[in-house]
């Protein structure tokens, strides 16, 4: 087991080496995307179309970090198998590890942004409740399960149908607007169901609850998100296992 951990950790480091080797800022580039998105969203929704939301930069950044983890993972998942031909040629290498490592790498980038988020919260004189320590790992787990499950589906499908990468790209950019990243959703409205069934929406809303409001999470929405994620994970894993042998042949 600990060998698997060593291998996983090594592959995560390898992922970072592949991404940032040769660039002067290295890993700091991973923070460039959420910070620039933050600046543009704050400009648009404070100056151009003002939304009356308290602590708006913090409000947006709490959502941007998990969203970027989600969308970067799935975007990369499409090419995860296709670009890992070297690993898939090793005797007995488990292909599913590639997807897990992909989720983990992007989670580390998320964790890297977390101190900035906490610093922003402190600078707004918001008190950070001890709930954070208990709830954030739970939210991480839900998102990791969801992301990995979808990763299995996308990566497996893209081996056989290269259109999947394109479709994923479009769906992710649409989903950005259907997930309450830069606005407050109205759960009681006619389209509230969109936010209720979207596990990423539940995850983001609960980050806001514990970090901004300092209140307990909304347990029913978390339970639903967790169940949905788990079902997606099991389905994704099942599909992946079914086609594993074909993946290796087709790569």
């Amino acid at each position, binding site marked *: 087991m600990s060998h698997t951990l060593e291998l996983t950790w*090594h592959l995560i480091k390898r992922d970072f080496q592949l991404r940032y080797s040769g660039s002067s800022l290295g890993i700091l580039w991973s923070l460039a995307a959420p910070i620039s998105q933050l600046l543009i969203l704050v400009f648009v929704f404070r100056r151009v179309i003002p939304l009356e939301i308290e602590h708006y930069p913090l409000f947006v950044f709490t959502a941007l970090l998990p969203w970027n983890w989600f969308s970067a993972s799935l975007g990369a998942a499409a090419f995860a198998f296709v670009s890992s031909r070297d690993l898939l040629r090793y005797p007995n290498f488990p292909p599913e590890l590639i997807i897990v490592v992909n989720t983990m790498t992007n989670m580390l980038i998320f964790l890297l942004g977390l101190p900035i988020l906490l610093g922003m919260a402190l600078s707004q004189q918001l008190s950070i409740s001890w709930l954070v320590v208990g709830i954030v790992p739970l939210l991480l787990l839900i998102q990791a399960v969801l992301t990995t499950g979808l990763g299995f589906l996308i990566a497996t499908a893209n081996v056989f149908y290269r259109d999947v990468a394109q479709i994923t790209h479009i769906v992710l950019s649409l989903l950005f607007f259907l997930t309450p990243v830069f606005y407050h959703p109205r759960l009681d409205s006619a389209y509230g169901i969109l936010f209720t069934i979207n596990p990423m929406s539940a995850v983001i809303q609960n980050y806001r609850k514990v970090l901004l409001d300092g209140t307990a999470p909304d347990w029913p929405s978390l339970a639903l998100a967790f169940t949905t994620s788990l079902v997606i994970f099991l389905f994704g894993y099942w599909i992946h296992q079914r086609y594993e*042998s074909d993946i290796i042949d087709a790569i």
Partner: protein
Amino acid sequence: MPIVLTAEKISKRFLRHRNPTTTVRESLTRLLTRQANPQPATWALQDVSFTVEQGRVFGIIGHNGAGKSTLLRLLCGVGRPTSGRIMREGRVSGILELGGGFNPELTGRQNLVTAGLLSGMRQERVRDQEESIIAFAELENVIDQPVRTYSTGMYLRLAFAAAIALEPAVLVLDEVLAVGDERFQRKCLDRIGALKSSGSTLIITSHNADQIQALCDEVLVLEEGRVVMQGDAKSAVSCYHDLMRQRSEVLAVRGGKDAAATRLTFSQGKRLGTEEVQITNLVIYDNQGRRTETVATGTAITVEVGFSITEPVKDMAFTLGIFSDLHVKCSEVTIASTHDFFGQMSDSGTIRCEFGPLPLLPGTYFLNVGFYPVDWSRAFDYHWQMHPLYITGYSATYHGVSGIVALNPRCSVKT
């Protein structure tokens, strides 16, 4: 010796998804119009069974596309057989293909650590072994450069050094011994010997039949995805040569029509001799008197050899022979003394030899021709494999017949 690897009736079929550019649209159209899949399934391996004992060097030979690489991949656990079972005792490690296994963007050292961990070593042990692997590969200077900057030889040295350092129970080497300079090959072969005597099992493929014969205790011959034979190296290699010859005969017959168009050049074969007498040309005529290099089995040919004597030579010997492409002498005529045979020779002229109908099976042959002093002390001029003769034929006539002589035995059974 205990058995470390068993293949039980394994078959491998490559399916529809082989074409990576299949799009959703194609699949949907196919589904809606109920078309059959355009790419028929191909069997890369069929019913392959064998066992490998511990400590043996097991070779697999076959021509390109016979299924060697597919078989090795399955043995390593890269992919699963469509049917049948593979049982392994202990860890299998190997170099499956040049270019696979290492990421070109990462350095040699980074790739080495990945390789070590992926073959089941702990991080600590990889660190311990790292330097000795690099030293064996002789890559101290470039180990921290990206692998994409390596030459094929460097790449192979690293792959090989990594694979053997991991002390696998079974080491699989696909076609890799053919690369690298001779000195490094020697080093690898020594290491393979050491591995073997320490109880490791090796499975190798090679195009080089001599290498297979020198290294292997046991050899499997594959043809079109099926096992032709499994046995000792010597008989397996000769079986492989037979298969190769059959294939080249088929190819020669197919290519025979165009062969006459290719001009006879002096770039092929070898010319030896002191050239007091020179062979100026060699022309083949068929039974209609047409100049050709391609005739059908059973056609009579006439060969004319032009010569020119540049130094005062009173007498000489002459040979003209038909040889198969594997240097088997089919027939050779020797004239020990042209003076006794033809009388006084003028300074230049042509020797004409009328062969009767050639009872040769389709294939590539060579006319080797030479002039020598009568004491055979040297050659004046000898043309070796410079003049090809392509024999074509109707495969139906000689179906199932191989070899050199075109015999068509009638076989029947008496009860």
